């Protein structure tokens, strides 16, 4: 009986984890949609520079600059890792990182459950 109970408990936990994962993905997609809407309203958005060099870093608003500099230091990181460094909430960093992805400064790659952000490195791969 107790074994059955444990099995049930285990499957419930798994289900909850799956729901949480789906919700997190949904949340990220919604953040992206919100940002896309914001940018589509802005004229000249296509002219935004897409290189995260120091001049771009200087031109970013303070909150995004902090996230961008931290990611430059880490090279590649999840929102959790960035939040650890900036001492801001993970959800906040996730929003800022996605915003930087939309602006064309960062690349996002999903591996399993985790999303990794990195500074664009296509040319490195070409070498």
């Amino acid at each position, binding site marked *: 009986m107790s074994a059955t109970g444990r099995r049930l408990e285990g499957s419930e936990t798994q289900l909850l984890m799956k729901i949480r994962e789906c919700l997190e993905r949904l949340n990220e997609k919604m953040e992206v949609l919100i940002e896309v809407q914001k940018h589509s309203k802005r004229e000249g958005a296509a002219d935004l*520079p897409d*290189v*995260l*060099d*120091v*001049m771009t*870093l*200087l031109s970013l608003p*303070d909150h995004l*600059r*902090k996230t961008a*500099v931290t990611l*430059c*230091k880490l*090279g590649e990181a999840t929102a959790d890792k960035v939040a650890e460094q900036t001492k801001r909430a993970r959800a906040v960093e996730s929003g800022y990182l996605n915003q930087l992805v939309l602006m064309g400064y960062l690349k996002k790659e999903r591996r399993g459950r985790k999303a990794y952000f990195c*500074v*664009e490195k296509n*040319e*490195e791969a070409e*070498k």
Partner: protein
Amino acid sequence: MGKIIAVHSYKGGTGKTLLSINLAALYANRGKSVCLLDLDFRAPSLQAIFKVSDSEYWMNDYLNGVCDIKKVLRDFSTTHVKRGRFFVGFANPSTEAIREMSAKDRKWEMKALGRLLSLKTSLLNDSGIDYLIFDTSPGLQYSSINAIVSADVVLVVSGMDVSDIRGTQRMIDELYGLFEKKTGLIMNKVFGEILLSKNEKQELSKKLMNNFNFPLINMIPCYCDILRTGGGTLFATENPEHPFVKILDGVATTLENL
């Protein structure tokens, strides 16, 4: 964990290189492992002071991704300091290299920033370097801002003329502040007679700190005897009792605790 110090200024000719070299020597003479890098690719100068005419690899090659940083570093521990370790990385002084570096695009500069940032791991964490000192180009340009972003502390050097003071003030507010860098300022080549009177010195310090919001560490008078010395040895190593070295020793301690 070691510390990266970028020595920067608004205008050229403020004494960045002289201060960088002697600051590095002072840390080494305290028994520390020090690495001094020339990041002034438009006007490389460390190679002339250390009398290096040729090098297999330069800092340019490291930033180009051609070689590891260890291939660039030259060891001057036995010749230029009494204790500790003293390594120097030189920038290529050839006209062709200077021209090539000034024509780099933004993507290259972005990658160069990544390579400078990675020195924290390769030199400070893995190779046990205690102090990494960047001698930078003056003003707001890619190589110097890359160095500032990669550093833990910025040591700004300013002269006494109004244009330098105003420019330095702008950089403190609009550059170092934006990147949340700890900053210390040295007023260099201050007229000797000002320093003769303690009251005048205090008054000037107060004025600079209050009116311009300067994070002033100290003021250094113009010592002509330093400029007369040759490049074979380092002034701080050979003249530990000189007032210039004493002032710089205090600056080194302040930066250590910043």
